[in-house]
């Protein structure tokens, strides 16, 4: 097929340096474009990796009760029957929800815990290990405690129940939350949480089922469906697929934006390579007079385009890696945190996948080389005598 010609390659390299300033502009714009897109992708894969890690701790099956296809509370009458299903390791009736805090115009998350249960989420485990949670008291995340203190709720907070009664809760301790989906968090006993939400004694938000054998998943679901015919079973895999699709969707938006900019760039490059300076023209005329064939000149031109695009691609990727490594993706990462429903990530765990690199490659390098094909051909097929005259 086509053999690589190293002498022509070296010649192309020299030509690039001779027209340094002209090429510099293209390289800078190209590098920045690639750098921006690849840092977006790297941040995205890193955030996704961290969210995936959290998702791996989700319960294997969540039983959510429905009324008129809306989520509603579930009762715990069948809890022991769930325990008896083969393959089930643990069952937890959970109480959690959001409380709207009108003064600060935000809602925070309330998590009800039972100190005698094993805690499935690591942050809860560490919080409850450090000190004892008493009834009528709650632990707050640092952010929420600060917010309360600003509104002079230093020792206790008044919750308004649905029945419009007021429930006082003491503030016991604040902890540093590493739950990435919620910055503002209050941990209290299940009984207190139920009272605040207005649940009855046997009502729970949902039931989490943990399996000891993953292969039993479909079996367990069928049996759960018989116990709760109206309920919806959400598996861990469903949640993970949702996360995957969410991230795919938002990177789709970024690609769309990138396409617009890369085609603008296409026009710039086309225009730039199309307008050939007289000295460049003369050079090609001389080469032709020396006996260079059209293919040789074309090849040099394609080599030039390949060198520029591959160099800028690599440089852009390196730039993006540096930005993530030294600046922790500051500023740009906020975009993704909001989209993914993630409120806080202290530092990005840098993940470099082959896949975003491949995507950026296919979106930039072929487009750039394509933009130079027609102008290069125009230059290469000029007549020697016409150019020299």
């Amino acid at each position, binding site marked *: 097929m086509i053999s690589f010609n190293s002498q022509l390659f070296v010649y192309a390299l020299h030509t690039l340096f001779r027209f340094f300033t002209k090429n510099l502009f293209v390289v800078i714009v190209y590098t920045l474009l690639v750098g921006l897109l690849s840092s977006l992708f790297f941040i995205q894969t890193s955030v996704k990796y961290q969210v995936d890690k959290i998702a791996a701790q989700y319960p294997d099956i969540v039983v959510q009760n429905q009324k008129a296809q809306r989520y509603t509370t579930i009762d715990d009458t069948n809890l022991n029957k769930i325990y008896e299903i083969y393959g089930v390791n643990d069952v937890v009736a959970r109480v959690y929800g959001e409380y709207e805090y009108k003064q600060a115009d935000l809602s925070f998350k309330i998590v009800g815990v039972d100190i005698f249960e094993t805690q499935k989420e690591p942050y809860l485990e560490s919080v409850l290990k450090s000190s004892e949670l008493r009834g009528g008291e709650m632990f707050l995340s640092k952010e929420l405690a600060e917010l309360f203190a600003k509104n002079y709720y230093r020792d206790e907070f008044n919750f308004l129940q649905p029945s419009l009664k007021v429930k006082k809760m003491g503030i016991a301790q604040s902890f540093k939350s590493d739950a990435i989906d919620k910055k503002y968090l209050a941990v209290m006993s299940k009984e207190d949480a139920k009272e605040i939400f207005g649940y009855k004694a046997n009502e729970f938000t949902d039931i989490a089922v943990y399996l000891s054998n993953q292969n039993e998943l479909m079996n367990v679901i069928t049996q759960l469906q018989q116990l709760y015919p109206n309920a919806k079973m959400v598996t861990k895999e469903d949640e993970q697929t949702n996360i*995957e699709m969410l991230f795919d969707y938002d990177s*789709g938006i970024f690609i769309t934006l990138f396409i617009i900019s890369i085609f603008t760039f296409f026009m710039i490059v086309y225009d730039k390579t199309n307008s050939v300076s007289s000295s460049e023209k003369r050079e090609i005329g001389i080469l032709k007079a020396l006996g260079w064939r059209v*293919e040789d000149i074309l090849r040099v031109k*394609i080599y030039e385009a390949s060198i520029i695009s591959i160099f800028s691609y690599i440089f852009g990727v390196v730039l993006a890696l540096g930005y993530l490594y030294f600046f922790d993706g500051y500023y740009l990462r906020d975009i993704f945190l909001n989209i993914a429903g993630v409120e806080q990530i202290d530092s990005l765990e840098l993940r470099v996948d082959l896949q975003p690199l*491949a*995507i950026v490659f296919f979106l930039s390098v*072929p487009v750039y080389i394509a933009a130079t*094909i027609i102008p290069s*051909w125009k230059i*290469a097929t000029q007549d020697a005598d016409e150019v020299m005259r």
Partner: protein
Amino acid sequence: MSLTPEVLSIYIVDILFLFFASIAFYLSLKITLGYDRNKNTQQQYELEKKSYLAATIIKFIFFIKIPMFVFFVFTLDKISNILVGAMCAAGVVNATEYGVPLLILKMLNLYLFAFWITLNSEDMKYEEQKYFRAKFLLFIVAFVLLLIEIITEIVMFSSIDINSIVDCCGAIFSVTDTTYISELLSKDTLLVTLFYGSFILLALSFLLKQRALYGVLNLLFVIVSILSLISFFGTYIYELPTHHCPFCMLQKDYNYIGYFLYIFLFYGTYYGVSLAFLEYERKEVKRRFNLSLLFNFIYLVLVSYFPISYYFKNGVWL
């Protein structure tokens, strides 16, 4: 409809291909209709100039197409994560009716474009340019196939329904079913004999320097290789007698060995098949013979390694 970033980037490159291939197609049409090397007019001169543009575009498409093909297979693997039931690319390929034809078409086009490039470089070697019209005629055919490929690709990706359940490769390549593919795959001893037999024939025709025979045997060799890979050698790569899948070996769990296997097979058979169609110089013929046999041999050694090492480790065949 699944518009993942990978699919989106495939679409973009497809649009780029379509745009430039159309230009090359238009030029090829003009050249095949109007070119006459005995005439000495301005128009002929212009046509010859235009042939360079067409040739550059076609080369460009081919060189992007090779990594794109790998990326395409990679994308299928990626989509299998969001399709219920699919565990590798096989499920995605079979999720719609367009998957299998598209894959075959893609491979055919790769061979066709590679052949075009060979034709072009042969053509440029001689002053009389004897393949000048032939190569542009060939491109017209290739363009139509490329067009079909791009349309099928877009239709395939847009008709994948993420909510429907598809088969995983275990079900598609099952040998216990009664489909024609399982019928074929269950005859693994026959296929393995055919595989080694066709390689011996290849080597014989190599020694006899029978160009035409060698080329035709290469065609046979590709088909037998892929079938025997699915039915026999694959099971040793996975070390699992029931796992027949040509895609899972592309995954990380098997050290991406599939990519190497397919690339060697492609190069070996491509050089072989191209021998049957063109007249080369003596030196070029020798080079192509050698390269073809070398790559085919590497492929043979690679696939044979798995069952043999399995036998040495475990003392039994699967």
